[in-house]
């Protein structure tokens, strides 16, 4: 998790209000598992249109919570989905995606548990 992203969000924090970053993390976790499933299903079935949509959505929200590597992998998957990159690397990218998603999911859930 990129510390500078989290630090930037802190400037939006208002006294007495719920933690801005944790609020975004909770929202991310609510939808990320479904989005990750959509990425996997579309990649395995080679449905590039759905891969484009699923990876695009997760790319943006991952970047917001500071999961920049996950966001970069999603960006690469999105590029395959919309035809900007060749499909050859799809399987290795999907493996990298699943590994990184597990790391991020664990780290963010740990933050929520700690709070």
């Amino acid at each position, binding site marked *: 998790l990129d510390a500078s992203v989290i630090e930037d969000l802190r400037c*939006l924090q208002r006294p007495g209000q719920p933690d801005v970053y944790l609020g975004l993390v909770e*929202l991310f976790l609510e939808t990320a598992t479904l989005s990750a499933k959509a990425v996997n299903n579309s990649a395995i079935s080679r449905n590039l249109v759905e891969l484009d949509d699923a990876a695009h959505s997760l790319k943006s929200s991952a970047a917001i919570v500071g999961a920049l590597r996950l966001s970069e992998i999603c960006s690469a998957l*999105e590029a395959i989905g919309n035809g900007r990159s060749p499909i050859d690397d799809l399987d290795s990218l999907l493996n990298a995606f699943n590994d990184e998603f597990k790391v991020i999911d664990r780290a963010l859930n740990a933050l929520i548990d700690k709070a």
Partner: protein
Amino acid sequence: LISFLVDHETRAFRPARPSRTLENDIVNIDQQKEKLAAIRTLIVDDNAVDRRLVRLHLEDIGIKVIHEAVDGGDGIFKVENAREMSRPFHLIITDWKMPKKDGLAFLKTLRDVKVGPRVFVIMLTAVADLGPVKAALASGIDDYVVKPLVKDQLKLRILGALDKISV
């Protein structure tokens, strides 16, 4: 690519002036507090995390009336509903890439329907999607901001456009 802004007169891209900061605009925020509080805003984005982040940025400069739509179709529904209630939106911040009705289709419909005073539209787009910005300009966006939102980017654009936002 991030350092390019839209020139509203020539509809061309030009290098951004990098000197503007939110600190310079603090006076602007104070002077415009009442206007900012009166601006009725609609966020159109299919991603709940993105919508929350945009909302946080808007609230940070004192915008208080913020509605949300989950895609372009929902956006048009809410625009029309607001118009019927005689409470039209003054500012719309819309994502570009959305399922069902995307940002471009939303804009085309938006500019076709009479929504009261001309609404100011800011489009959010990923760097890789800057190509469609040209199409969006032709469809009537007033400005765009590259995602993910970095620091004060969106807030500065809104503050810089306050004189063009009719309340």
